[in-house]
Structure formats: structure tokens, C-alpha cells
């Protein structure tokens, strides 16, 4: 009876008050303005970033460690491993002088036939150097008169003895870099004689080879002038 009364009361109340006008969205002139606002423009505080790297705070799960399967390396082929190069110092190169361009041959003016005061004579060959096949030979003449007048004879003496010097006779272990001086006379017929060592080199084989060179010469040809001359001949063995 009571429950019926309560239910009847509710229903009766609803019945009594349910016609109370159109309140919401009513097409009425007194309706209030509605302002729509975009969500993004809401002045909300940003979401707090968490520490990603932390295992506990990171949102992304930490990757599991990759365990690669062990492989055996194939042996290297012989040409794969480069032989370490020897460390060499950079070679210093002297600056090469640029060769002068070939000059055009200029017409030579004939020398004056009259001697000018102070004019020098031609080249005086008191000493000369011959380039041998395997070295150099130089001639020097003290007697300027003979050397100038008969320079060709000096050259013949030089080359003839040099031809007859067999450097192989000198022991290279003791002779290289040393020089020995032989003195000999040339008589009127050009035959050398009286060869003797003036300055020994300290290497007996070099001294002997130099003596033999002089002794091998049969003659240089008759002297162009004079009765005899004395020649001082220095043999020098260069290291290659």
C-alpha cells in the first residue's frame, strides 16, 4: 500500500510538472548565445615528457640485446694482407734549373785581324781533363811552354797511359779512393823509362798497377821538342 502510494506520488509529480515549457535549444528569441571553442586552443598544460632512457620510465620497451652467432673467419688469401711498406724518408730533390731555350745561332762577326791592346791569347792548355770511358783523367802541365805548345802530346801521354792501366789489378778493398803518383822520363824517341813511385798510395796493388801501366807503354812517339821530359802522373781510383 505504501509502495503504491510512493509510486503514485512520483508519477503524479511527474505528471504535474512535465509541461514546464521548452528550456533547451528552444527556438526562442530569448535563447542565450553559445560560443564554440576549438579544443587545441585550450590553455591546458602539456603532457609531462617522461625520461625515455630510463628503463622504468620509458614508454618504449628497451630492445633485447642481439646475440649474433659466432662465425669462423676464412683464412686470408696471400695477397690480401698488404706487406707493410718500409718507412722511407722523402727524397729531397734539388730544384732543377729550367734549361735555357736553345739560342738562335747568331752570325759571328769575324775577329779583327789587328791585335788590340790587352787582347788575350787563346786558351792556354796547361792542364786538361779527359773524360775516360769509366772516369776522368786530367792532365796538368807545369812547364807551360811545353804544355801550351804541344798540348796534343800531353794528351797522347795521358790517354796512352790511361789505356794501359788495368784498374782490375788494384785490389778494390784497399785501393778505392786512394791515389798514387808515378814519375817517369820520356826520352827523345818517346820511350818511357825510369818509372818510380813518387807518392805511394798505401795500397801496394794500386802502386803496382800504376807502375805496370807505365811499363806497358812502348812509346808515345818522338818528342816534338827537347831532349827528354819528366812526367808526373797521378792515378786515382774512384769508388763507383
Amino acid at each position, binding site marked *: 500500500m505504501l509502495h503504491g502510494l510512493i509510486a503514485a506520488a512520483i508519477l503524479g509529480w511527474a505528471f504535474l510538472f512535465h509541461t514546464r515549457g521548452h528550456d533547451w535549444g528552444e527556438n526562442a528569441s530569448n535563447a542565450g548565445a553559445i560560443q564554440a571553442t576549438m579544443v587545441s586552443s585550450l590553455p591546458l598544460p602539456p603532457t609531462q615528457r617522461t625520461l625515455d632512457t630510463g628503463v622504468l620510465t620509458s614508454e618504449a620497451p628497451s630492445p633485447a640485446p642481439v646475440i649474433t652467432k659466432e662465425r669462423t673467419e676464412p683464412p686470408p688469401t696471400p695477397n690480401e694482407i698488404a706487406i707493410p711498406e718500409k718507412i722511407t724518408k722523402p727524397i729531397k730533390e734539388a730544384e732543377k734549373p729550367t734549361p735555357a731555350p736553345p739560342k738562335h745561332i747568331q752570325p759571328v762577326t769575324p775577329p779583327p785581324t789587328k791585335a788590340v791592346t790587352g787582347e788575350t*791569347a*787563346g*786558351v*792556354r*792548355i*796547361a792542364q*786538361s*781533363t*779527359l*773524360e*775516360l*770511358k*769509366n*772516369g*776522368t*783523367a*786530367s*792532365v*796538368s*802541365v*807545369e*812547364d*807551360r811552354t*811545353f804544355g801550351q805548345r804541344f*798540348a*796534343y802530346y*800531353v794528351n*797522347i*801521354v795521358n*790517354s*796512352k*797511359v*790511361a*789505356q794501359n*792501366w*788495368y*784498374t*782490375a789489378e*788494384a785490389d778494390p778493398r784497399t785501393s778505392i779512393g786512394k*791515389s798514387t803518383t808515378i814519375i817517369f822520363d820520356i826520352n827523345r824517341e*818517346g820511350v818511357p823509362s825510369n818509372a818510380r813511385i*813518387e807518392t805511394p798510395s798505401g795500397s801496394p796493388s794500386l802502386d803496382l798497377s800504376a807502375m805496370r801501366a807505365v811499363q806497358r807503354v*812502348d*812509346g*808515345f*812517339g*818522338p818528342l816534338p821538342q*827537347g831532349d827528354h*821530359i*819528366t*812526367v*808526373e*802522373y*797521378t*792515378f*786515382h*781510383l*774512384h*769508388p*763507383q
Partner: protein
Amino acid sequence: MLRLKRTPLPRHAYLCRLGVLLLLLVGASALHAQEGFKTETSSGVSNIRIAVADFKPASADPQTSAFKHTFDSTLYADLANAGIFDIVSKSLLPQATPGAPAEIRIQQWADAPTSAAMVVFGNFGVQANRITCNGFLFDAKNLQYPQVLAKQYNEDATDDSARQIAHRFADEIIFRLSGGSQGIAESKIFYVKLTGADKEIWQMDYDGANQHPLTHLGTVSLSPRISPDNSRLAFSSLGRDGFQIRMFSLVLNRMVNFSAAGGTNLSPAWSPNGKDLAYSSSRSGDPEIWISDTSGGSSRRVTSFRGPDVSPVFNPRSGSQIAWISGRTNLPQLYVMDTDGSNVQRMTDGGYATSPSWSPNGQFLTFAWDRKYGPGAPGGQDIYVMEIATKRWIQLTHDGGRCDFPSWSPDGRHIVYANSPDGRATHMKIMTMLADGTQKHELTGAGADMPNWSWK
């Protein structure tokens, strides 16, 4: 000669550079040079660079041109053949033709491209059927005193005398510049000429010119050998008594006496003093070396060993040794002994060696050698040079066909020999070369054999 000597040097020779300093002084006073200039060349020690100018015609005689051409070409060839010069090609010579010392501008010849160390020039003319020739040799490097040699010649105007003048002048130049060894331009070569079935002895100049016969025996004459004084010619000739040594006098221009002996007598050889003659004779049954005087008297036997002994040759330097070919151990080998028959020494170790010739300085032997003798053996008969003291040898000819009968020139720088390209005896010709095997060229055509170079 230098190359010959150097060839067998030990290996370390190239390691050494040789430098030579020469100080030359008159008298024995002070010994050290205090002052002087230094010049350098790279012309090489062995060869002097020499320029040979064409001589300047000195007369308007119509014969001048022809004779001058003979003279110029002979002089040029003589100097080129001498083996001691580096001769400047004619295209590199200056345009000017100097005829006298006053006309030459020596600097022009010393400069490139001529770059001559020595200059030969002169003038050549024909006047009144006489050749007048002035020749000069100038040292182009010595501007102050350039003259080395001046020569004047006056001869009959013939082509032959133009050639002889050139030979004589060339010899003078070679004598001055070679350091005392005589030139060979005036030397002669004697040889066997094949004329039909006969073989006669002929003579020619060293350059192959002027070939002419000496003997007219109408038989087979072999191995001519000229005496050291150029007066007599010994050879072996086939006569009534077989092969005998015969003697021809170049002075008398007829045969002179040489006593005949029994058996076969071959290959005479003069001693250097001209008083003895060594030859092979089989008068005792076996070919042995005998020595007799120049008329065939007082002969004595030197070898006595079973087997043939032939082709003796005296050591021209000492006269006290004989090299010869002996077959005492089957194949012929080269031996050396003293003239009394002692000190016999075998030089070759095998093969087939023939016809030795001794170098004028006594240091070398040249001979023909077939080192691998036998059927199917490689190689052939070639010319070799052996140094006697060491028995080391070098081969001079290669693959040129059969070579035989080498003979040294008097200057020791040349060797004349007979060569047959196809090996046939009738195709033998005479060739010459430098003693190191270079500059080979022919002197005669086919049909010439057994050359022998005169002693001077």
C-alpha cells in the same frame, strides 16, 4: 788493342772509376804544378776526333780535279781505317775550304757541330805535270799554337802518286797522333790469286787498291810470306819435286835461289831479323819444322815428334819463339816453343786450329779455329785472338762463313784474313778488320786467298 786487353778483365772492373792526373814537366826541378787552367772534354780517351777537309785546289790545271779527288778520298779512307780516330762526317764540316794556315779559322772547326780535336787540311795542285801538295795537321783545341804537322809533297802527276802522297801523309798523321806507332797506309798485302787452274802470288796496297801479279810460274803457289825488309817474298810452290820453298826478289823482280830439299816443303816464315826462314818440311818422312837461312842452306830440324808440324811463325818482337800447328795429338792444335825446340807449350785445348799469326808486339796470336770440330758440330771455322801469357781468347768473326789465314798488320790494330761465305774454296775473298773484330770490309773479290801483311 785496348778492347782486346780489357775483354777478359774480372767482373769488378766496372766497379772502379778511374781517374788520372798527369803532371808533365821538363827537367826534374820543381815537381808540383802551381798554376794552370783546366778544360774538360767528353770525347773519350781512345779516339781522337779528327776532321779531314777536302784540300783546296791550288791550280787551274784540268788534271787537278781528278787527282785531287783520288787524294781526298784516299786520305779520308786511310784515316777512317786507322782505327784510332773518330772521324767527322764530311757533312758536318764548315763550308770554308782552307788551303793554308792563314786561311783557316780554327775556332770554326773546334765548335759544334764539327767539334774536331784535330783538323787536316791543305792544298793540292798540278803544275807542269808535277803534283804539289801541302798538308797541315792542326790541333783545334790549342788556339795559340795549333800547328802539329806540316808536310810538302812534290811528285809526278799520276793517279798512283796522288794515292801514294795521301798514304804517306796519312801515315805521318797516324804516327804523330797514335803515340808512336807507324801507320799502315803504305804497307802491302801479298796473297794467292786463283787464275784458272793456277795459283799465282799477287800484291796489293793495304786498302785493296793497285792489285797486280808478282809471279807467273804457271803452277800452284801457296802461302806467300814477305821478308821484314820488304825485299824478298818466300812461298811454297808445286814443281817437279813436289812442293818446295821458292824465293822471289821484289828488288830484282825475278825468282832467286832457294835450295830444294826432299819431301813436301810448306808454309815458310821469316824471322824478324830477316836472316832465318822457318818452314815445314817432310824430308825426314814426317812433316816437321825446320829452320834454314834465306837461301835454304844450313837447315836444322826443330821439332821431332810423330805427327805433322806445319805453319810456323816467329815471335816478331823477340824472334826467339815459334808458334806453329802440330797434329801430335790427333787434331791440329796451336803450340808455342822456343826456336831451339824447347819449352813446348800447347795453347789450344781442342777443336781444329790452323794458320797462326803473331801480333807485332808479341802479345797475341791470331789463328783460325774450329772449336767444335766434327760431323754435326755447331759453329765453323772462325778467326780467334789469344793472349799468349794467359791463354785467354776472343772470337773475332761470327757466322760469316769459313774464315782462314789471318795475318796481323804491322801496327797491330788490323787483321787481314780470307773468308768464304759459302765455304767453297773458289769463293775465298780477302777481308780486313780491326783487331777487335769491328769494321770488317772486303779488299778483293772472289778468288783471292792466303793474305800476308807486310812487316812495315
